[in-house]
């Protein structure tokens, strides 16, 4: 059973404001789901390496160089479009509230 305080702590970590009602039902649901998930303890995973992706590729990287695309985007209408998508902006920058 997951406690009310624990649900609140997780909501804080996840940066999601939950109503009292939501804290209640999400807590109940999480407890049920975690109980269901507990069945994995029946699987022997001794010496099994974790599978952490859908592919066997390792370090698929592009060269660390400015692309033609990024040169074109710099100061273009498209970058203005991106800034304009933000709810608060000033002089071409995205504006945020203070951290503290």
């Amino acid at each position, binding site marked *: 059973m*997951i406690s009310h305080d624990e*649900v609140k702590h*997780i*909501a*804080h*970590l*996840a*940066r*999601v*404001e*939950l*109503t009292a009602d*939501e804290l209640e039902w*999400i807590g109940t*649901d*999480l407890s*049920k*789901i*975690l109980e*269901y*998930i507990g*069945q*994995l*303890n*029946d*699987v022997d*995973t001794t010496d*099994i*390496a*974790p*599978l*952490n*992706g*859908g*592919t066997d*590729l390792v370090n*698929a*990287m*592009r060269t660390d160089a400015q692309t033609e695309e990024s040169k074109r985007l710099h100061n273009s209408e*498209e970058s203005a*479009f*991106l800034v304009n*998508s*933000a*709810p*608060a902006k000033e002089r071409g920058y*995205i504006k*945020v*509230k*203070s*951290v*503290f």
Partner: protein
Amino acid sequence: MLNALCVNLNELTLAHARDGLRKKEFSSEEITRACIERIKDTDEIIHSYLSVFSDSALCVAREVDKKIRDGEFLSDVAGIPIAIKDNMCMKGESASAASKILAPYRASYDATVISKLKNARAVFIGRTNMDEFAMGSSTENSAFGATRNPLDAERVPGGSSGGSAAAVATHECIAALGSDTGGSIRQPAAFCGIIGLKPTYGAVSRHGLLAMASSLDQIGPLTKTVEDSKILFDAIRGKDVLDSTTVDSQIQNSEFKIQNLKVGVPKEYFDAGLDPRIADSVHRAIEQLVSAGAEIVDISLPHSPYALATYYIIMSAEVSANLARYDGIRYGYSVENESDNATKLYDIYANSRGKGFGAEVKRRIMLGTYVLSAGYYDAYYLKAQKVRRRIQDDFKKAFKKVDVIIGPTSPMLPFRFGERVADPLSMYIADVYTVAINLAGVPAMSVPFGKIIEKNSKGLDVAFPSGVQIIGKWFDENTLFEVAGHIEKTNMIKR
């Protein structure tokens, strides 16, 4: 099969539409108009679409018609009205993933699948409805209202690509794209009686797909026939520098002979949770392959019973990370300009997300954050990754003995609205036979077979086909098309 001239143009298959366009039997504008008319007639009830691009679709259709008149040779999908799930970016259009938090968002670029189809001159007919951020098995989690099943409007179309499946099934388009993280193409295809393909992980670029769980997500086609599925898959697959998980085309082209086919039937996929009528349909579909000379091999995928629990840990962990980008700062819904008492940065994050996300999305973000949090990571997330390895090993072992694995797509027929949405575990069970495929990264298709008759609330008979799931080796989609094509053909004869 169908005589192209005998049906309404919106009812054509992709292959027939392509052939008819090339022979100038009709124009792309006529097909597009037929789809738009159909949407006007049916979509008030079915609600497959979140928006319809009537003007731009007709404009592209006329351009294609001109090129055909000029004798230009065009691609297989040129002039074909295709519907797009609302989680793929189309420059200048909304891409909301059926979420309130992205309702104000306009895409600033094209997803790779979109630019491929644009270059091939496909006609985008509209954006289709889905469960919010592709989380769900019924489309009931859409922030903009559910989609109805065209076979019986009292039932769900499946999900999360329910809008795409319903649009294809009710001929509001010729074909559609969906995305599949744990069954979201195959299960709605099964519920609506059409073909759905989840390609091999790495076969199709996800650049421009609003990410849900990146180690599982794949884009794939929802179509009326198996042939159409191959055409659309060929139009979107291939390596893309913008998605580093994609690989060079490894699709094998060996000659297929059904007499040489070994079909694995896993005992774990015919357990007590499966509707016995669906089990019967799947067995009858397998018999069609046997009578054509295929060999049946009884196999075991011993870790299948753990797939759903493994999936819910890994998927929700990746969801909690991927959806952190919806923060009320850069785009989408924000409390910034509302009379909200948000005074600090934290309040903007938490309040925008609290108001913008729906119930299922919150549930999964919370679960994912929990399993990744200090003290629980090893017990849940690391454990799940290890079980995932064992699930993949089951498939590797099985595919040493067989060419394809066949089982049901869904354990149940389409359910009625409201039946499962309140209890998350009862909804998650809908994906019990599909999630292992995403965990292993192999390709799988759902093909309709047989008919199960049930009464609707008016006492009338409704026929539901069963979804037969065919699972293939990594990058062996071609064998899936061959096997699925055979099942499709025998189903039509028997019908």
